[in-house]
């Protein structure tokens, strides 16, 4: 459902992504790993055009994102994104965070949107937090709300940008559990993560980026036990 061809991104003179080509199929869970500064997040952010690619094409369901004629808002409706720092709307309570975009963008009625939102809150285990404001939630709770907020738009694809990196260790599991459930329900997911356990256990495929280059990609078991490249081997040695 996503096809990336020769994607290059430069910030000024600095080339953060070099000539990346890959594909994410429907229902697939892909983990993107690599050292910090390797361009993982930038790669993810190019997929919903939060960063504009310098060169190359990105096709989402045959629609070319880099074509100026493409309605990027329409494409983004189908792509949910979860950020490292949650970015919940602080002036709205939890329920309103979930209903805002479905009502404003998809023009659902308030009742429809709230029914959907309550269902999602139950799914992420936060039913009792419906009227709470984000500032009163723990990091793990915030991230679960953020996932529910993205799901409320009924996306075909979910992007996760280091969803557990800003969390206290004891809260990582609750977020990963929600993500695992989501993966098992057949959602297509691209996850930038430092959680190698998650990558290994849940992902169908691992992309390893270093210095903006897609160095290696493969099925997680073989990648983690027998990486094909020295760079991947070095990286795994340092973190495992």
């Amino acid at each position, binding site marked *: 459902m996503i096809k990336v061809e020769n994607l290059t991104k430069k910030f000024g003179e600095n080339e953060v992504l070099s000539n990346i080509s890959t594909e994410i199929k429907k229902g697939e869970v892909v983990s993107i790993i690599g050292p910090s500064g390797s361009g993982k997040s930038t790669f993810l952010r190019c997929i919903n055009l939060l960063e504009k690619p310098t060169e190359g094409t990105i096709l989402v369901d045959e629609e070319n994102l880099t074509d100026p004629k493409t309605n990027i808002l329409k494409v983004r409706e189908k792509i949910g994104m979860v*950020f490292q720092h949650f970015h919940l709307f602080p002036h709205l309570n939890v329920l309103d965070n979930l209903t805002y975009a479905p009502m404003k963008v998809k023009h659902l009625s308030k009742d429809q949107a709230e029914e959907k939102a309550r269902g999602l809150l139950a799914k992420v285990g936060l039913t009792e937090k419906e009227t709470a404001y984000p500032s009163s939630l723990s990091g793990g709770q915030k991230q679960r709300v953020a996932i529910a*907020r993205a799901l409320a738009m009924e996306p075909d694809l979910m992007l996760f940008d280091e969803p557990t990196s800003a969390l206290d260790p004891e809260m990582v599991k609750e977020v990963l559990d929600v993500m695992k459930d989501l993966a098992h329900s057949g959602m297509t997911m691209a996850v930038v993560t430092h959680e190698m356990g998650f990558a290994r256990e849940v992902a169908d495929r691992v992309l390893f980026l270093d210095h903006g280059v897609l160095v290696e990609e493969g099925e997680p078991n073989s990648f983690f036990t027998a990486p094909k490249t020295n760079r991947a081997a070095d990286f795994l040695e340092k973190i495992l």
Partner: protein
Amino acid sequence: MNLDFSQIVPYIPFMLEGIWVTLQFVFVAIIFGFILGTVLALFKIGSIRPLRWFADAYTSIFRGTPLILQLMIIYFAIPQLTGYDIQPFLSAVLAFGLNSSAYVSEIIRAGIQAVDKGQTEAAQALGVPYRQMMIDVILPQALKNILPALMNEFITLTKESALVSTISYLDLMRRAQVVGADLYRNFEPLLFVGLLYWLMVMGLTILGKLVERRLRLSD
């Protein structure tokens, strides 16, 4: 000491009426200045170059010249130029509104830019159009942060409104002068309207605190 407040008693209704006259144009000028200031702020942070240039030039002119000069130009010079006999009320609203919008636009611009960039990204990622995002996500958060600065601007405007006494608009200040001239005593009427100005500003301050408390509900 030769103070005799009993002398101004017959003039008190006349002076109190000035509160309404002053508030009337201050209120309209604040609203006008706030709306225009918001538009200018959006020009300043927007991507359309001529609008950005216009908003910057506008701010530079209205902040760079005295308010009383702007008032005089609008009241005295415009009729000379166009033959249109502009009323003091309209002149006052225009001068104060246009002037205030220059300051308000800077306050709002700073407020918008202080909102976490992640908020914009979160809204974009959900497919929310720019206009909608500004209205529902960014401006409410910006307003909460800049409320004290905005209150400052509104208080300043309320007090500076006394300048309209120079274009023979019968506001609070002008009425004190009229009473002073009538009685050959200035201290009592001036002190009296001074108290009224202070009370008006106190009212505004309390209103600001109430709004602020409401906005802080989400903290």
